[in-house]
């Protein structure tokens, strides 16, 4: 792995910024070199490119998206884009649900966390969409457990919530052509797992941290 940004990545980031006209707000922390997990709401295929392009250039080289293996490995082009261009971490979705026994599920879950922890290494940051799938933009769906376990496994890494506005209108699920509406990317205040905090409590708190960054159309 090297730290040079693939030229296509910069190109795609520039296109994504152009299409979405994204404005970036740091509303709870500042851009920083330290290792972080940026976790955000997920409504569009453009999400990770936009979030990635919203980071200052010197942070981008050390920030890797976590993406679903089943989707991104389904064609050679997708695979090339996600692996070579963005240096993504591909993970298997739903391994725990597919497992035959609780034993196997626990094992698969642990393997997933180890994979992400290894991907963080001692210098990388991750972009994670803990909903696990794209929503319709009306509300942030419930988070999967990976964020919690990863946070416990790597307590040294900061958890930064982020909200991507309007992406579901720019390129919703099932569409291939984007409509150039304006987007807004807001980074919130870092949070961490409190001592003794239950999994469900933390995940709901994290979901709320993302959801509360929403500016437009919130009820």
């Amino acid at each position, binding site marked *: 792995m090297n730290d040079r940004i693939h030229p296509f990545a910069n190109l795609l980031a520039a296109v994504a910024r152009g299409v979405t*006209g994204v404005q970036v707000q740091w509303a709870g922390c500042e851009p920083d070199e330290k290792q972080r997990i940026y976790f955000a709401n997920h409504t569009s295929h453009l999400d990770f490119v936009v979030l990635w392009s919203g980071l200052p250039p010197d942070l981008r080289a050390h920030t890797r998206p976590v993406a679903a293996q089943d989707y991104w490995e389904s064609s050679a082009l997708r695979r090339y884009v996600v692996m070579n261009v963005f240096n993504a971490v591909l993970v298997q979705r739903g391994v725990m649900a597919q497992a035959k026994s609780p034993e196997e599920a626990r094992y698969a879950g642990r393997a997933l966390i180890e994979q992400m922890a290894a991907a963080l290494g001692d210098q990388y940051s991750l972009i994670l969409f803990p909903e696990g799938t794209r929503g319709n933009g009306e509300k942030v769906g419930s988070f999967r457990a990976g964020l919690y376990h990863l946070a416990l496994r790597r307590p040294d890494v900061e958890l930064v919530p982020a909200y991507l506005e309007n992406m579901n209108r720019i390129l*919703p699920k099932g569409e291939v052509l984007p409509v150039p509406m304006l987007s807004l990317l807001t980074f919130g205040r870092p949070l961490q797992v409190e001592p003794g905090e239950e999994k469900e409590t933390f995940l709901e708190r994290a979901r709320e941290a993302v959801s509360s960054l929403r500016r437009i159309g919130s009820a």
Partner: protein
Amino acid sequence: MLPAIHDAKLAWLYGGVLFLLVVSTLIGRWLKRRRKSEASRATIENVNARIRAWWKMCAIFALAILVGRVGSLILFGLISFLALREYMTLVPTRRGDHRTLFWSFFVIMPLQYFLIGIQWYGFFAIMIPVLAFVYVPTRIAIAGDTAHFLERAAKIQFGIMVCAYCLSHAPALLLLKIPGYEGQDARLLLYLVIVDQMSDVLQFVWGKLIGRNKIAWRVSPNKTWEGFFGGILSATALGAALWWATPFTPLQSAGMSFTICILGFCGGLVMSAIKRDIGIKDFGRVIEGHGGILDRIDSLCFAAPIFFHLVRYYFVP
């Protein structure tokens, strides 16, 4: 290349704009130095920020006009695109509108400017009010989502009408073949924009200086009767004084300028009402610095088509 560069009258208009910019910059500096209260500080900061933005806008616009018809078309096409983008971002749409919106941005809007480019007046005049009018609701209906159907169709139609159709009448002035005014139509476009924008500026200035009585405080708290009369009368006088750059007599020029000013006011008022309705005060803060193109051109959107048709009716045989 650059046919307009030999136009002495155009050079005078440019010189006049440059003079105004320099004078207003100096006044801005002077105000900043002599301000006494903290309260006036925000206003003066805002005025100076506006003047700085005016420098940039004038530079871009002057360059586009110098390049000729293609330059003006590209510039206004770009403004239309950015304005439509702001509008559609603010107006709630649903998932079922996606394809219609795509058409609006990438087919209907560019086609409108393309038609000006190939000088096809007949198609230019009906494409959006007739064809797009029929197409938009049809495409939404095909998408199958009937919730708020009429609202959605109307909102998209209105956006295309204002941001693409109405605004495109400004560069469409270059289509008009006015006898005895051949090759000078760039000045007519400049005249429209100068009078329209100066009307906005002068209404703002008069309003700040002596504004007391609000016209429609619920819609736009900054619009006062004093600003309205002062701004429109002084901008009309300015427009009348620019008659030498146009195919008009001084009196005709005063009439045209007055019409531009009144319609510009209407445009500003209507777009303010839309903003209040959407409740964009939150959103405006969010896109601050980036947005606001629609705020700048709202008056032009209403003034351009009427000015275009007045000129066409009275001056093109």
